């Protein structure tokens, strides 16, 4: 087997790996202890393994680890800064959008991308549904998830309430 060297940034840290070409990014991330990245359908249908790659939500189960060379990867673990969960994660807690929790890390990452994309814009529930298509949840019925997204937008995306992120108008 030809091992391939890759360099990437995972949750803000520069990392180097030698990867087997058939290894999925899902397997690589979980082997590094990032267990928020869930293995479920393995066909790119459910979104439980979603991370952001250069800001784009990607199903890591169908994404080869070798493709991560030179990329910036964000998982749910990295959204916690200094022990404080992100505004998106907090919105999921506040609105009761978490039940069994298996799909939540993937939904949180897709929501994070969505909130960053639509920063400063009004979002309707239909737009949110379309943007979250690809992240399946069998518990919540999605209504609370949509509430969480709306709450995330209201909370000034990216701000954890502690200041310092530079995204708030009053900072």
């Amino acid at each position, binding site marked *: 087997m030809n091992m391939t060297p890759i360099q990437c940034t995972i949750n803000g840290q520069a990392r180097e790996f030698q990867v087997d070409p058939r290894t999925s990014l899902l397997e690589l991330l979980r082997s590094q202890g990032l267990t928020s990245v869930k293995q479920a359908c393995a066909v790119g249908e459910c979104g439980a393994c979603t991370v952001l790659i250069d800001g784009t939500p990607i199903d890591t189960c*169908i994404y080869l680890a070798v493709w991560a060379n030179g990329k910036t990867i964000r998982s749910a673990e990295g959204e916690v800064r200094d022990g404080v969960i992100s505004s998106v994660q907090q919105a999921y807690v506040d609105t009761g959008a978490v039940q069994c929790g298996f799909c939540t890390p993937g939904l949180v990452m897709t929501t994070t991308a969505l909130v960053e994309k639509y920063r400063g814009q009004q979002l309707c529930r239909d737009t949110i549904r379309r943007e979250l298509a*690809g992240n399946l949840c069998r518990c919540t019925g999605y209504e609370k998830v949509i509430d969480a997204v709306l709450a995330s937008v209201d909370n000034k995306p990216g701000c954890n309430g502690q200041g310092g992120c530079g995204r708030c108008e009053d900072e």
Partner: protein
Amino acid sequence: MIEQFLKPASVDEAIRLKSQYKDEAVFMAGGSKLNATPTRTDKKVAISLAGLGLNEIKEQGGQLHIGATVSLQQLIDDPRTPPALREAAGFIYSRNVRNQATLGGEMCARQEEAVLLPVLLAMEARVVFADGQVSELESFLDGVRNSSASLVIGVILPEPDRPCATRKIARSAAGLTVLSAAVALNGEVQRIAIEGVVPRAVRLREVEKKGLAEVPLELAVSEAVAPRDDVRGSVAYKRYIAGVVVADLLADLLADRQQMTKEK
């Protein structure tokens, strides 16, 4: 099982690698099918198409040239994409998958569900190969040129402004597709394409020639398709719904045309 992942920097190099490894190698773009468990490739060598610059959409001489590695989400986001093709890309419900899946992959995968193909067939898309040859999409789907040997580098839509409408029938957005169909109008001439109720996506040329509408069109389409009885529905249901969908698509196009004429 992939043992080597090769990253050519040019189309020529990709072709050379394919000639070198022959049937042991597969061209790989987004990997949404080749990396997915049920359709995972058994080839030993993956030849990446990522570095070949095939991810652009260009207008040239009134035609739309779409690179083979343009992602489905890129198609949706690009204002030059014809509305029907944009809608068809959205039939693949998962945004995450659309971020990875490519137009070329959708054509070359020859999967049972091929929801983009009816629109491409109705718009008489042409397939561009690495050696410069261009073939009608229908000939390509007939297997006249096999994509495993000759690299598809893009698609040409000769008339991107041609009125076209498409629809997918499934029990839910994420459910199995019963069928997808598209109708386009080239002046008064109909172009009708369908998949899901035929062995592979096809133009219904015999039906097109008759120039029918409404109930006669429904009946002609119902007779022309060859569905199978399966979990998606019975043969009778599939024949019925195929006819209704095609007739409705044509009615929608004609209504749009009438509206535009009034506004002028």
